[in-house]
């Protein structure tokens, strides 16, 4: 390290970059420090996050991560939230390419639709990385440079296994159990893949009755209405899951609507929105997976910067953090902004 005093921001920038891929190297440190004093490492760069997301709590956290990294690195970054409209998302991607950014982080939520657009963008010299959702075949299915996000199938498996183990410990006959999972947008790839992961766990525990049902969108009341009706229509339900943050947020209210006591139906899901946190504290929700989506927004910026600087393409698994009543106290103050 040179005698030049290292600024706190520079230090954070370098540390974060290192954490992104475990890539702390003398070269990187010296390069980052080579930026003139007072200038941030990625000044002048412009990155775009093209997602399928909507204005819901999950994407608010991704956006927060993106903004924090952009602030730290001194670059400009923007996020598109087309509300699960694939055609609109593709239009946003084309607009992003046309704006000639220094990199695009793309949610690859379709195995075919993104193959050619990504190839074309790469051919035009615009680096494209995957975030949040990847092609089912990974790099073999899509030519994106790398992927930052949760292994969705594994996450589904982890939450499924957690609930089923709890059921087994309670003495529930799992061969007669029914597993219901509410997908706010059940056709979305994340819901399908997470459901496949839960099904993997169900197979392992000998559970044969399992269903993914339509929550009717991302509007809270609509989802709660659908879930309540489903639960009353299927009194055989033993395990109730939300495939995403909205469905998981509503679990506690749904179980109360159906007259269930805490723990009577074993419930869990994804993300740590305020409603889910209350559910964990009141024992209506057993566990939830925090996919640490803040990191997806944060590292999207960091990795695109690293690619521009050093052509680095790290794959980063952000997810699988299991939140239960035991660790909720730490998570709660961060819910909605960083978790």
């Amino acid at each position, binding site marked *: 390290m040179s005698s030049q005093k290292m600024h706190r921001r520079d230090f954070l920038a370098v540390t974060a970059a290192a954490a992104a891929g475990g890539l702390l190297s003398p070269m990187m440190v010296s390069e980052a420090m080579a930026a003139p004093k007072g200038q941030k490492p990625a000044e002048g760069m412009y990155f775009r996050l093209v997602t399928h997301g*909507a*204005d*819901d*709590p999950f*994407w*608010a956290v991704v*956006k*927060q991560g993106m903004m924090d990294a952009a602030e730290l690195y001194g670059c400009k970054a923007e996020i598109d*939230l087309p509300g699960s409209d694939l055609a609109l998302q593709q239009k946003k991607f084309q607009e992003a390419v046309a704006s000639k950014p220094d990199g695009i982080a793309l949610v690859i939520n379709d195995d075919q639709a993104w193959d050619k657009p990504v190839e074309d963008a790469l051919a035009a010299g615009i680096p494209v990385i995957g975030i949040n959702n990847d092609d089912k075949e990974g790099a073999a299915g899509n030519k994106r440079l790398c992927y930052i996000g949760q292994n969705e199938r594994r996450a589904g498996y982890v939450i499924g296994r957690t609930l089923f183990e709890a059921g087994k410990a309670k003495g529930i006959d799992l061969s007669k159990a029914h597993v219901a999972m509410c997908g706010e947008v*059940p056709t979305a790839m994340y819901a399908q893949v997470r459901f496949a992961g839960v099904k993997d766990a169900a197979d392992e525990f000998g559970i044969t009755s399992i269903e993914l*049902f*339509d929550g*009717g*969108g*991302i*509007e*809270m*009341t*609509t989802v*709660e*209405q*659908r879930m*309540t*009706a*489903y639960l*009353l*229509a*299927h009194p055989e339900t033993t395990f109730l899951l939300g495939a995403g943050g*909205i469905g998981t*947020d509503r679990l506690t*209210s749904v179980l109360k*609507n*159906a*007259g269930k006591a805490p723990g009577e139906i074993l419930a869990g899901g994804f993300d740590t*929105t*305020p*409603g889910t946190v*209350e559910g964990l504290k009141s024992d209506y929700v057993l566990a939830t997976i925090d996919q640490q989506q803040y990191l997806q927004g944060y590292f999207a910026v960091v990795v695109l910067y690293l690619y521009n600087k050093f052509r680095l393409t790290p794959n980063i698994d952000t997810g699988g953090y299991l939140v239960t009543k035991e660790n909720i106290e730490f998570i709660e103050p961060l*819910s*909605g*902004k960083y978790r």
Partner: protein
Amino acid sequence: MQRRLGQGLWLSFISTPLVFIITFLIFWAFSPGHRFVDPRNLAAIAKLTPDLGVVALGIGVLMICGEFDLSIASVLPLCSFLFAQLLIAGVDPFAALALMIPVGASLGLINGVLVTRTGLPSFIITLSMLLFWRGVLYVVSGLMPISILPYVPTDSDFTHFLTGLVGPVPVQLLWFLGIAVVLGIVLHLGRFGNWIYATGSNPDAARAMGIDTRLVKMVCYMIVGALCAFAGIMQATRLGSFTASQGIGFELKAVAAVVVGGVSLRGGVGNMLGIALGVFIIQIIDNGLILLQVPVFGVNTFIGLAVILFVIINNLANRQFAEQTA
């Protein structure tokens, strides 16, 4: 009075309640174990339907006046966000509610002024405002959910006031019915109701009669805005938080409910009883189909078909009445 009870009201007054009763009886009879009338199910319907229902009541009045408001899906969460901000600033929840109602009405007034002053279709104006306010909401909220439980705990007076229980009846249902009664009185028993029907059925004739149709429309937009604020706060209180996805899709669901309730898309036709029942018919179909264990992915298909069917029934009823009175 006769005129207001005219305009198709006679038959539509009968047709919508009939549809409601038939729908109710079908799901009562055919849902396995009669789960449709399970007190838990009825309580859930009564508790959750007013979130959309309260706004739909205002939309019904506005559509009778001949206009649309698609911006509700953004005005509602925006009011919810501002309410949360007031709580954070230390404002008492009751005072915050009282402050937000006129704020909502003001947002409605902006729509009213834009529609009446530009002469452009309200569909386009309010669609633009839907996008505008949602953009504003994105910027000011950063899409972050805000827990309001520290300010309005689940056992607080304010929570009971908006989302509690009176015996077995959810307070939300009482608010919905109370607002429906008030708007029903305004629509059917007051002079202003006459002006609304006249403005919606034939604005030129209404103006010739000395009715300030611009003022009538602006007041109707203000009613919608005020109800958006109320519904947004009521929903946030039940959820325990503001979320930016509140109200998404309400703009079209409200229109569907109101149309099912017998309100004409062309204006001038409809009644408050039909509007209130239309809201419940839509909700009952959604709920009942799931209880019938219709594949959940197919529920929207049936709702779409039901809306078309009810519109045809209402049109026939209105046409028959028009022929009889011609």
